[in-house]
Structure formats: structure tokens, C-alpha cells
């Protein structure tokens, strides 16, 4: 596809359940970011991947959150023991990454997954 895609677009789950959110970045983009956006707020950084490795996971709120990118393309954000406070839109973005000057490394965002924890 031409852009970043995220699945599912909506996810409703019950408190305490486990969820996985998927991100398909733009082909060839080595950098991938996850953000969380609550209503009326800007995106909040969660984690950054360069290739397969998490170069910065300082935004993950606690150890219930984990993300992987095993082959350097698709990424999955995993949330264990979901809580009502986890309800938000989870955004993924990708960029050219390594080799591109950081200041010109434009991030392209997907449409997000709206997670609702009941």
C-alpha cells in the first residue's frame, strides 16, 4: 500500500484482557514509531524502532506494554491486563530512518486503532 496501515481500526475489549495492535509501515521505511492519543490531546510518544530493535522505549507507561518488530517491517504493540485508562487511539508512524537526516526524516502516520477498554 501507499501509506501506513493499522489494524484493527477499532478494538473493544474488557478490563484485564490482552490485546495486540498491528502496524504496517510504508515499504522501505526503517524507522517506526508508536504513539497514544487521548481525546483532546496530542500524540504521546511510546516507542521508536530503528530496524528490528527498539532504540527508545522510554514512553511505554509500564511493563504491561510491549512492542515488537521482528523482521524490521510490521510491528505489533501488545498490551497485557488492559485497564480502562488504556482507552485511547494508538497511532503508528514510519519514516525513512537511518541514513536520512533527522531534521528531514518526515514521519507518516497511519489512521490509528481506537482501543476501548470496558
Amino acid at each position: 500500500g501507499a501509506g501506513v496501515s493499522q489494524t484493527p481500526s477499532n478494538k473493544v475489549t474488557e478490563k484485564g484482557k490482552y490485546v495486540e495492535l498491528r502496524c504496517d509501515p510504508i515499504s522501505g521505511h526503517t524507522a517506526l514509531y508508536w504513539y497514544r492519543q487521548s481525546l483532546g490531546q496530542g500524540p504521546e510518544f511510546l516507542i521508536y524502532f530503528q530496524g528490528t530493535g527498539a532504540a527508545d522505549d522510554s514512553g511505554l507507561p509500564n511493563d504491561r506494554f510491549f512492542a515488537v518488530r521482528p523482521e524490521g517491517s510490521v510491528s505489533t504493540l501488545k498490551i497485557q491486563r488492559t485497564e480502562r485508562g488504556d482507552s485511547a487511539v494508538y497511532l503508528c508512524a514510519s519514516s525513512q530512518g537511518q541514513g536520512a537526516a533527522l531534521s528531514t526524516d518526515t514521519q507518516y502516520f497511519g489512521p490509528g486503532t481506537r482501543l476501548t477498554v470496558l
Partner: protein
Amino acid sequence: SQKIEQNSEALNIQEGKTATLTCNYTNYSPAYLQWYRQDPGRGPVFLLLIRENEKEKRKERLKVTFDTTLKQSLFHITASQPADSATYLCALEPGGFKTIFGAGTRLFVKA
């Protein structure tokens, strides 16, 4: 503490007028600042980047200024159109790869 602040109140203007949005930050020294547009149900879309050594940047009807002394960026849309109605986010990178976003300002342009 480090903060990025954008006017939380929506901005309502008449078509054809210039919209001016403000972004203020504290306790950051960013090398550059970015502006994004976000429509409901969609992810942000990058618009413009301005570096600390640039006072002003233009792209079509958009103009961004960056005052590192005031720690402020202004975002202008000239000859505004109803299609410009959206939320506009400012963002900066304090170092490394983390991008910090403001909460955004909603703009409504009335025909």
C-alpha cells in the same frame, strides 16, 4: 517542567481571513519545530519544519515563525478556506528520536 502549550480554545475565523495559531514551549531548546495537521479520525500529517536558525518559513498559504528567545512559534494560514478546518499540532524533538506534541488547536473556517 517541560511543556508545549497551544491554545486549547478553538479558533473560529471567516473564510478569506488569516488564521494565526500559537505554540509556546518551556524548558526545551529544540533545534527545530514542526507543525502537523490532523483531521478527525485520521493521523497527523506533516506540514512544515522550521529550524532554530530560521526566523520564517513559507509553503504556499502557510507561514511559520520561530522565536527561540520567546520560545514561541506562530503558524499562519493566509486566505483561509473551509477546507483548512482541522486541528493543528506543533511538535518538537528534544533530543534523540522522541517527538513531543502539543495538544493542538482546532481551527474552524466559516464560509
